[in-house]
């Protein structure tokens, strides 16, 4: 994976597979503590205790094509390589929360990447799911909720080109506003 937005897409794919109807992404950066924290929470099928214990192993997967699953282990590795931590909480039938922390200034921290493209990709793929994106830098906050957009649209599908273009610009602005100057790869 080249950047954090691709890892995010991979983790979101897990939430989709877990049949979640609401998926929340929180990204918060704190210049003082030098942390950027990714939190993905879903209300999907969750995992039982046994599966949860071994979910960060590359040899654990739900898929049937083969016995290897690399999404979660790679994300964990990316966090730990960048001086961060990785946690995962889950309960059967209650959903799952994945939390990864990275040191912003660590040399091995992957760049943020195109979060907008990830979000738009998952929205287009599963428009019926409620997608929430929250960004924060301790001073300011930005939030996007696909259901709020759908509500305002009154019958026009969120997948319409004009709407999706608006969503793209909206999230892009949010990222620039919140992370500009905070993450060195985003120019304010």
């Amino acid at each position: 994976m080249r950047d954090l937005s691709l890892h995010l897409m991979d983790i979101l794919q897990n939430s989709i597979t877990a049949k979640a109807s609401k998926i929340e992404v929180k990204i918060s950066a704190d210049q003082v503590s030098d942390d950027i924290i990714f939190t993905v929470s879903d209300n999907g099928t969750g995992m039982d205790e046994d599966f949860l214990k071994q979910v960060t192993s590359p040899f654990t997967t739900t898929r049937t094509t083969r016995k290897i699953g690399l999404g979660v282990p790679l994300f964990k590795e990316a966090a730990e390589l960048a001086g961060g931590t990785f946690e995962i909480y889950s309960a059967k039938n209650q959903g799952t929360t994945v939390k990864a922390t990275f040191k912003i200034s660590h040399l091995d921290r992957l760049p943020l990447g195109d979060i907008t493209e990830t979000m738009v990709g998952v929205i287009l793929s599963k428009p019926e799911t409620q997608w929430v994106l929250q960004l924060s830098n301790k001073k300011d906050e930005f939030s996007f909720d696909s259901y709020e957009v759908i509500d305002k649209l009154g019958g026009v599908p969120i997948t319409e080109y004009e709407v999706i273009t608006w969503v793209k610009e909206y999230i892009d602005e949010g990222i620039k506003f919140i992370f500009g100057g905070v993450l060195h790869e985003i120019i304010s």
Partner: protein
Amino acid sequence: MKSLAELEEIRKKTLEQISLRTNKDGLRIVVGMATCGIAAGARPVMTALLEELKKRNISNVSVTMTGCIGVCKLEPVIEVINPDGSKVTYVKMNAEKAVRVVAEHVVNGRVCTDLTIGASEVK
């Protein structure tokens, strides 16, 4: 800053156009978006497919994501599924090839035989 209020404008503008469209079943394009697909570059492929479809104003083709199809070494993989269930699997995709699949396969109904999984096995 953009605001949610702008959506009202978009709603008014697009509502009329939508009612004009016929919603008959069309092709379905599925993009492999598991770890293997994403790492190999499936996201730009999906974006290219969506943008090319919109550019050509094709509204009866749906693009969705799926997990690992099972041939990770040939990722990014996409499947073009006909309404009757038959499908064509394209492998080792990139954004340019995705545009070609839309132009040749989706629009003109000619399968890009050199990009299919069958063609990759011959080599």
